[in-house]
């Protein structure tokens, strides 16, 4: 499990002149549950479609589990992908979907698939077109998991689900990730979902990767500094200012220490919550300056 699940180098995808993903360089280690967050249109789906090999990059490279995505049958078998809106064949029954999975995947885990369908309570004879959104998502998840991949990719798996179904889906996801030993990447525009299930984070905005890393490391490396106005104009080397906010008398900065530890010279600092950190990056990417951090924007 030493091969990174995703290694991207200057990965770029353009549709005509419109950039969907720009210069993404990433190195995501194995064994993580990765949250890919960003607003709609940030490039999340593009990055995941590139990882699944559904589309090819305009320039740059991406390797998934050490190989080109969707290169051959063996590589396809190693990656499970659940697309946005969890598409299933409306005309096929739940049982026929399992049959599809069994016929198209050499490593298909039949007992696992049947046990999961039973556990979720899906009627095998029911047409998939008549399932609820939550049930469809569960069926798609079962299909992707029962092929026993090394990496599972979810593109906004819960976006279309109501809060109850969303919770059940994520709960389920957590359970079998523990059960079958698999790396996971899921995208979401809901930071709370990511916070609940992920241990690694990639923030995407305006088609660019803003920051990426293990969540514990990221929270350790980001902090808020408050000081009288004018005293925080120069910062120690190795730090980036993500956001600046001035009042008449004082300045508040959100700072990222690139080496992961906050410099002692900076005086008193406060930790920044994950949601605040994400929002700060998103606002910076949009060029709207400092957000009002107490206010939830979604």
């Amino acid at each position, binding site marked *: 499990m030493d091969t990174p699940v995703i290694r991207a180098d200057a990965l770029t995808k353009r549709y005509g002149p419109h950039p969907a993903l720009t210069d993404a360089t990433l190195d995501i280690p194995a064994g993580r549950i990765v949250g890919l967050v960003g607003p709609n249109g940030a490039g999340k789906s593009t990055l995941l*479609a590139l990882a*699944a*090999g*559904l*589309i*090819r990059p305009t320039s740059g490279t991406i390797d998934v589990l050490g190989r080109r995505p*969707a290169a*051959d*049958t*063996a590589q*396809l*078998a190693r*990656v*499970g*992908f659940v*697309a*946005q*809106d969890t*598409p*299933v*064949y*409306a*005309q*096929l029954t739940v049982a*026929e979907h399992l*049959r*599809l*999975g069994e*016929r*198209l*995947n*050499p*490593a298909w885990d039949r007992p696992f698939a049947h046990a999961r369908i039973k556990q979720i309570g899906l009627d095998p004879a029911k047409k998939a077109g008549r399932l609820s959104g939550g049930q469809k998502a569960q069926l*798609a998840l079962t*299909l*992707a998991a029962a*092929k026993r991949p090394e990496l599972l990719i979810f593109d906004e798996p819960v976006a279309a689900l109501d809060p109850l179904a969303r919770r059940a889906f994520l709960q389920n996801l957590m359970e079998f990730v523990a059960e079958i030993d698999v790396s996971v990447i899921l995208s979401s525009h809901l930071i709370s979902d990511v916070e609940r299930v992920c241990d690694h984070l990639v923030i995407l905005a305006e088609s660019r990767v803003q920051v990426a890393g293990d969540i514990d490391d990221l929270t350790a490396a980001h902090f808020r500094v408050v000081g009288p106005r004018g005293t925080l104009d120069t910062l120690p080397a190795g730090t980036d200012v993500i956001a600046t906010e001035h009042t008449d008398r004082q300045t508040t900065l959100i700072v990222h220490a690139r080496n992961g530890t906050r410099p002692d010279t900076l005086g008193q600092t406060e930790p920044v919550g994950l949601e605040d950190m994400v929002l700060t990056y998103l606002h910076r990417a949009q060029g709207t300056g400092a957000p009002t951090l107490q206010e939830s924007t979604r």
Partner: protein
Amino acid sequence: MIWLTWRHMRTQTLWTAAALAALAVYLLYLGADLREVYDRDIAGCTAECGQAARAVADAFGTPLLLLGLVLIAGPALLGAFWGAPLITRELETGTHRLVWNQSVTRTRWLTVKLVLVGGVSVLLTGALSLLLTWAAAPYDQVAASRFEPLTFAARDIAPFGYALLAFAIGLAVGVLARKTLLAMAVTIALFIAFQVLMATAVRPHFAEPVTETIAWSDANAVGTIDSFGIGPHGAGIQGYTITDAWVLSDYITVYKADGTEVDEDDIAACDQQTLHPDECMTSLGAVFDVTYQPADRYWPFQWAEFAAAAGLAALLIGLAFWRVPRGIN
């Protein structure tokens, strides 16, 4: 993959097969009926054979023409209803993102779909074509015009090529257009355009046509003059038929023995002698040039037609195989 393809196409394949089976039964009946009439009225004919032939042509011409049209429309419909949605329906429901992430490469996915669905289209169309060719054989022998566009395109092996081409158009247009309805409409339009272009602009030039100079006295031995007109601008033949050959000349100018056109003065001279137009032309030593494709080129033309359709189909299929692994979103 084979199971999945069959599962998706099961219903429509069975319905189409049922409709074609009904058509096949009708063709068998029609073929048997035609043979009976042919044996009775034409093969054993001793007097008024021309009239007997015309009666057969009148009785069977219309149903055979309609069946021919069905056979020409068939590939267009299969291309539009089977070929075009093959990929667009997956794109519209998003299920391509499901199936392309099973452990099956897109090339294999496309190959199986193409071979199974496209193969069935070609075989069904081809079977219908051979059956119609059999059923219509006595009529075609009497009509002696196998190059007639609606006959040529609905007999023997040309329809195999059409079925393949129409399916390939549907597939390739589907890949490019990504919308089922649009792809279906474009498929039908392109296939009609192909048929019209082949019949009017391409097929006549598969081989260098033969131009023969025919003396007036031999005119009705080599072929048949359909109509002949004398006017202020000279004399001309409108429509000349040679048995089983494909005459390409529409209006044929008639020349005198010295190589100049028959003109008003010649005709006025004939009128003064109250000569019958036929006698007039013979007395002038009239000749005319007919350009045509001889009857023995029928099979080379059938093969050329098939090859043209299959070649185009191969290009379009190649396009789909090039495009699909590169991603459609």
